């Protein structure tokens, strides 16, 4: 459950998610020479090991089994173009520490935005109150966790001047208008975020991470014969700023314009059950939503998931393998270390059709007497950890994409989806197809629009009857997943696959 605020009292239209074009950042925030040296929070905020030990000791002072501290300092920037000019910028700075005490499967949580001992001790006292016994004893020495770096950067995002971002956003605008006379409005945006985290645990782990995240986004409105259509596209991930070349500007602009213009010719397919082909790449969202969530261990530990009795059982055809992977270089969902100090790793969820693992955080791993898979994530220091996906994808299969489309006969081909939602207990899901085509006599024909597809996750997985050899990882940088009121960035990918049957909510046949 998220912190449910009364409503947005004073949420100005300006400060949407907003953070800082500016800011006086500590040296290590803007200077790479300092960036990779461990000890950021000690240098900048005086968080010593001794202080962490005192706070952790307080957190387990009433008999908690385990406690952790999650320090975060983040800077997020948005540079935005509307009506032809880059005329607004938002910046948001987040600073705080979350303190969690675990007793069995119970969690006490407190947080503070003031990194002084008094505030931290008070928050630790709140967290400790989940238990009601006596002291868990002193906390020992910490060992620095060494991990791989799946998103090394040469230039810190916070050291990239605003002047370097402005021309990129302006170029998207100009490019979009130049690509089609039908374009009447362009919105463009460059977003970057740099998040520093430090996790310190009562069982002696100390882990630091520097997580970059960014995207370039274009949204266009096209007008033709008095009708209007809108579409958008973005590219990004955990990238270097140098990723945003003129080629990337062109690719983002072209995709947005093409996606809008094609909609003028789009038809609504007939409603009903039919074969559905999912194209490669971004359609992996469907895998994430329809199947991935049901494999998050908390839903299974609490018997809320339709997968809670299926470990070791056949859930798909033998050519289906699904992984959740923190180790994709530059991937939006990649993590060097998760938010409870477990190293980033690759977890096979379904291997050759057999359900092999759930995605675990520390609590669920302990419940199942397994090691955590490193899926413990949280939106920020204000939130407690939940098992969450990272980059979730299906591996390539043996078929050729053209044969997959041909085998569908009559149905729809899905190129892009949005607004996915799943009901975990039944596995029922619904998705909106934002880009796609009709398949008639095994051939791609008219574009389609405004269609919802619905199905059941486990049933859909069993009904994946062909998997092509054209796996693609989505290169988007704006993929967020919401769960329990928390948003975290995730990546996904898929080869072309054929699902025997899904419900398509088009017009009456």
């Amino acid at each position, binding site marked *: *459950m998220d*912190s*449910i605020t*009364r409503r947005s*009292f*004073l*949420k*100005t*239209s300006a*400060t949407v998610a*907003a953070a*800082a*074009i*500016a800011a*006086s950042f500590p040296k290590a925030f803007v200077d790479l020479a300092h960036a990779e040296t461990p000890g950021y929070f000690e240098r900048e905020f005086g968080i010593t090991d001794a202080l962490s030990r005192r706070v952790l000791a307080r957190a387990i002072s009433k008999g908690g089994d385990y406690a952790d501290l999650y320090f975060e300092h983040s800077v997020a920037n948005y540079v935005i173009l509307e009506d032809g*000019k880059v*005329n*607004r*910028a*938002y*910046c948001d*700075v987040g600073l705080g520490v979350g303190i969690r005490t675990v007793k069995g499967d119970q*969690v*006490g*949580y*407190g947080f503070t*935005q003031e990194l002084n001992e008094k505030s931290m001790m008070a928050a630790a006292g*709140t967290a400790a109150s989940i238990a009601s016994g006596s002291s868990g004893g002193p906390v020992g020495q910490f060992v620095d966790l060494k991990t791989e770096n799946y998103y090394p950067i040469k230039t810190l995002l916070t050291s990239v001047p605003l002047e370097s971002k402005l021309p990129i956003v302006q170029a998207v605008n100009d490019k979009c208008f130049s690509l089609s006379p039908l374009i*009447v*409005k362009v919105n463009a945006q460059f977003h970057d975020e740099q998040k520093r985290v430090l996790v310190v645990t009562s069982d002696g782990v100390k882990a630091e991470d520097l997580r970059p995240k960014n995207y370039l986004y274009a949204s266009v*409105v096209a007008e033709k014969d008095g*009708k*209007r*259509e809108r579409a958008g596209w973005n590219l990004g991930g955990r990238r270097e700023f140098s990723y945003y070349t003129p080629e990337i500007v062109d690719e983002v602009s072209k995709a947005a314009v093409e996606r809008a213009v094609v909609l003028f010719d789009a038809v609504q397919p007939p*409603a*009903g*059950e039919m074969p559905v082909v999912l194209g490669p790449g971004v359609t992996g969202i469907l895998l994430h939503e329809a199947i991935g969530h049901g494999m998050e261990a908390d839903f299974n530990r*609490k*018997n*809320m*998931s339709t997968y809670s009795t299926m470990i070791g059982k056949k859930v798909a055809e033998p050519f289906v393998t699904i992984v959740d992977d923190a180790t994709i270089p530059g991937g939006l969902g990649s993590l060097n270390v998760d938010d409870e100090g477990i190293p980033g790793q690759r977890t096979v969820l379904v291997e050759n059709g057999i359900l092999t693992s759930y995605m675990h955080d520390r609590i669920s791993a302990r419940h199942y007497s397994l090691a955590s898979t490193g899926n413990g994530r949280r939106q920020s220091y*204000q939130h*407690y950890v939940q098992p969450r996906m990272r980059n979730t994808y299906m591996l390539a299969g043996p078929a050729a994409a053209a044969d997959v489309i041909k085998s569908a006969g009559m149905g729809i081909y899905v190129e892009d989806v949005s*607004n*996915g*939602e*799943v*009901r975990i*207990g*039944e596995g*029922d899901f*619904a998705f909106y197809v*934002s880009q796609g085509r009709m398949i008639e006599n095994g051939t791609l024909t008219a574009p389609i629009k*405004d269609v*919802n597809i619905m*199905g059941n996750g486990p049933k859909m997985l069993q009904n994946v009857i062909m998997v092509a050899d054209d796996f693609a990882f989505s290169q988007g940088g704006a993929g967020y997943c919401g769960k329990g009121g928390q948003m975290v960035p995730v990546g996904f990918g898929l080869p072309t696959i054929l699902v025997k049957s899904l*419900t398509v*909510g*088009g017009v*009456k046949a």
Partner: protein
Amino acid sequence: MNKEMQDLAASSIKTALSAGADACRVGIDGQRFVQISYRQRKAENIKEASTRGLNIELYVNGRYSAQSTSDLRKDALKDFITNAVAMTRLLAEDPYRTLPDPKYYEGRSNADLKILDPDYASLTPDERHDIVRAVEDACLTAGGDKVVAVIAMGQDTRAESVLMASNGLEAYAAATSYFAGARCTVQDEGDRRPMGYNFQASVSRKGLPAPSEIGKAAAARALAMLGAKKIETATLPVIIENLAVPSVLEGLLEAMTGRNIQQKQSFLADKKGQKIASERLALIDDPLLAGGLGTQPFDADGFAAKKRTMIEAGVLKEFYVNWYYSRKLGWEPTTGSPSNLIITPGKRSVNEIMKDLGRGILVTGFIGGNSNSTTGDASIGIFGQLFENGEIAHAVSEMNIADNHLKFWQKLAEVANDPWVYDSNRTPSLVFTDVVVAGV
């Protein structure tokens, strides 16, 4: 007034102006909340904290930026604002960006809007646990042996905000909110485990129903979904349950914002004064509703809040136009976003209406879907109950409705008498006829 928040706002404005800003607006939000959840008759999560955040909007030499931060250390904040002013100068000029004409600040209500519960401070930790335990207990009892999991939750919050602008705006509001509910998962045939939930909110503790009623309703909603199946695609009357109405209404509201109108992303842009829905639809926006969860004496621009008729007898009367987009459009501003939305209720209960209709679908929730504010086209998954001969026959799921808003709202045949009062949207159930519901 909160002196500390007010001083922080005033000093931030001073910093911005002395760094060279021509004008600025500062918002400071603070809240204290306690959140508790229970599972298997013990506390699963307890979370408690105070937060504070500062937003500052800067107007510098015809340019504009907005910043927010939770790092409120005095020196850090001063540097933060000073640098922000300097960087704002690098952006392109935007002649439409100014602080509002102060005349819109005038006339702010001084009435007691009943949004601050006088009993808030006396709430004890034990009482908080008692509420959530009672919700859980009632849910487990009502769900009986079908229950596989119940998570009960409660939260209380006290929030304060200050909004101050360099051209004379000074506004303050404080409010409380309480929230309780449960998610209940029950065992169906095979591996299906439907979940039902019920969450209710109020500005005062006394405004919430008894915790046992809240828990019982969550179980009832889960049990109602047992044996859900889809039926054949058909054209049927559809009743959208009061709780689910805001999801559909959102499709209209999105197209009513100044931003979407100016950016050519609204299918309602040229429809003011026209009939966009059946004459049975009346929509009021009332920010001054006593005890409303969306009650606010001023909006994000600092405008004095006013009750507005948005739709009357199906005719679109107003848009949501904030100061900035009013300048871009050359229109008179209204307010930027909804507060308490009230659909005027009708006279009959959902049961009476079902009896009259004979066969149809009672939609209790939506899944996935999309509403396109540019074209008005919408497609959304539904679940709920099929009724036949005026009685509930069985649960339905995995079905879909697709239509265009401009056609769909004309099909509104009746408004029921059951407004949901535990949300800022006070919507009754709505009855639509001749809706294509796609299934098998």
